């Protein structure tokens, strides 16, 4: 695992290239002690949310994605990656602003979206 540092100027963390995440899948990043799931969706860009399902701590990054919806692999709770909303009720996920630069670098803001 590599280690990167925070770009203080922009208050954004550089998570490295988006190509580290296979198309349509998610991976986790530990940013300043917080575990964050980042998704490289097919056609909807990149999303960042809390990595653990509030239901029973399922690994959200391992979930199947459809559009902007992710399904937790543990008990199939559904969340909207764009808003963090729990689609079948209950507690939602925190979302984090994230963007991809022209060079393909992912920049995450820890400010809660």
């Amino acid at each position: 695992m590599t280690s990167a540092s925070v770009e203080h100027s922009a208050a954004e963390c550089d998570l490295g290239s988006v190509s580290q995440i296979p198309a349509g899948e998610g991976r986790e990043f530990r940013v300043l002690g917080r575990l964050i799931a980042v998704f490289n969706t097919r056609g909807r860009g990149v999303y960042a949310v809390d990595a653990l399902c509030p239901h029973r701590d399922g690994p959200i990054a391992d979930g199947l994605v459809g559009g902007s919806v992710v399904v937790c692999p543990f008990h199939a709770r559904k969340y909207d990656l764009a808003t963090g909303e729990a689609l079948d009720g209950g507690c939602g996920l925190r979302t984090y602003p994230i963007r991809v630069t022209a060079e393909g670098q992912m920049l995450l803001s820890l400010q809660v979206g």
Partner: protein
Amino acid sequence: MAEFINGTGRLVIVGNGMAGARVAEEVLARAGRERFEITMFGEEPWGNYNRILLSNVLNGSQDARDIFLNPLDWYADNQITLHAGDRVDSIDREAQVVRAASGLAVPYDMLVIATGSRAFVPRMDGLQSAEGGDRHGVFVFRTLEDCTRIAACATKCRQAAVIGGGLLGLEAARGLLNHGVGVHVVHLGAHLMDAQLDAPAGAVLRSTMERMGVHVHLEKNTTAILGEDQVTGLQFSDGSILPCDMVVISAGISPNAELAARCGLTVDRAIVVDDAMRSVDDPRIYAVGECAKHRGRCYGLVAPAWEQAAVAADQITGRNPEAAYQGSRVATKLKVMGVELASMGIRDAEHPGDEVLQYSEPKRGMYKKLVIREGVLVGAILLGDMSKATALLQAFDRSTPLPEERASLLFDLGAPSSEMTMLEMPDEAQVCNCNGVSKGAIRKCVMGGRRTLKGVMEATRAGTGCGSCKGLVHEIVEWACEGNVEEDPSVHYYVPGVPLSKKDLVRAIREQQLKSVSAVFNALAEGLEDAGSKMGLASLLKTLWGEEYEDERDARFINDRVHANIQKDRTFSVIPRIYGGVTSADQLRRIADVADKYQVPMVKITGGQRIDLLGITREDLPKVWQDLDMPSGHAYAKSFRTCKTCVGTEFCRYGVGDSTGLGIKIEQRFQGIESPGKLKLATAGCPRNCSEAMVKDIGAVAVEGGRWELYVGGAAGAHVRRGDLLCTVGSHEEALTLIGRFMQYYRENAKYLERTYGFVERIGIEAIRAIVVEDSEGIAERLDAAIQASVDAYVDPWLEAREPATVNQFHSVLQEVSA
């Protein structure tokens, strides 16, 4: 027509009842919002409601608010312009414009007429007041407004007469009973509900109703409503008089086809349509529901309207230009005044060979009658006891062959019925043991407006765990809906996100050469990816294309991405393949070494005679596999899993067949073959069945004489079922051929996640035997070739330890970012 085959433009739906709104829903489900500007007209000033439940509103058991299907917001949310309370007066087919009473003119490219029907009012004197208007105290029973007016009047009246002893009339009578008024049902026919029941059933129903306090007057032809201003009674053609102070006319329905007739469409009582639900005169105009006449028949029930709406939507959107409505086999299950009844198909023998079974117990209000033709159910009437209704409805719908022992169709033989009735079951009883959902929670969800099984399951999560309670959840939903369960159209789809049945989906995939999951979404689902559909599509595509399948790893469940089963602490379980459960000292030593080296927290013997290493981290998976140097046991996939064996003739003194030998061959041949649900197999060396082969998806049991009995559709998990005997074969090779052929037939025809126990019951063992063993469809050779191709395409997925399929395949946390 050709210019609209792609289905775009302005769609106008005249009629906002159950049929009209259903067309709108079906069009939306086919991505209609993007393609059409949808305008709807409804005469009633509100959204769309469930007309079937009007009698509940009348009897006070439901509030008018509770029966709305689509409130006004729904139309706005779906960008449908609804003109509620405005009536369409004319259709200008030349200019393609509809004109409404308000003066509004709306142009259309496609038009759907769903004007429904109104109450049929037979000719009689005294219907109108002296001034010529509607007479005070005389009602029809058709709309929410009728309901309110009847209820208001009933509180001031002493005797109410309902003209018409059909379904609607009895529903009206039931509603009135709760308002403390004396209720009389006046019927022209010789028995009640003559459209659904035969004479003995009608008689049983009559005595049941009379016990409840309803007075029934049969064979009475009403000629006049008596009284000057106030209603004082009914005059019958036989000279007799029935005193009453209010009258509800419910003598049938009359299609609203005048609008269509005025614009020159062919109307024969109702609007005549072809199999596409299109008017026979104008390709831009469709008619659906009670105002339509198809192959000489009009339907007054909701199920046919649902089917018609789906066909019309397929045609209008161009989704399926071959969609055709074939007419409905009418089957109803309902509750009239608390009396449950079901009726389907014909009421009496019609052909010389028809069998009729009949049982009557009038004292308990029970009556059962079945009409059977060539071993298939073609008609049934059930009254009072519904314990067999669901099974019979299914047998009727699917024309499945009936068991030889006919009595079992009418009664539960042998075991006393211990099943609690829905009414007796307490609200707090836990129904779904996986998600902890009570009967009360399901009932409340239905009361809250969800009337489909799928909707209730989604909202409560009941039945979404292991699925074994789904049947009970269905029964509770049915009970809570009083039989008026609605069907979510997606239950017929192979996966929820692509609106096609498995058959149609397979055809589209083959025709359009769709080889990846994203290609299917792009071609058949308007590019809308659906997470819940990905695994099912991946499984199907792999089955259809074999080596040509374009694998997209994000379409796989996590277990199938990393070839191990994820555990609650996010570690994985690793189960190497041990063919037939027969291992060796060398293998065991390697497993022990791995357990030591990786400090495996638990090593366990599984139910399938394998060794499970639990608690392996994702990053260690490739190393563990390489150290084991054994192939994957596929204990995580929807695929062939294991073949359990007993020791058979090799050591056992009872063995009559070489079960370990056959089990190893089976496992070597079919390892890793994907299927709609997992496949657990077993071979037993004698009928003592120590390896439990009778309760496996496929089981082979050795019998004396060197033969093997093959059982299919067994289960001993959440659901327990003894397998059905498929056939008996004479050798290992023959067993392998038939097992492979059955597997391929199951792979091609089962719904996603449908285990063999459900599949075999759904298709029927006789039908499967005919196809798989007797080759009745001439496809055996093709099935054999297809399974062989899948066998040849097998690659051990654990080889990805050396060559990962995707970047970071075995890494979850990619980076640490620190301040």
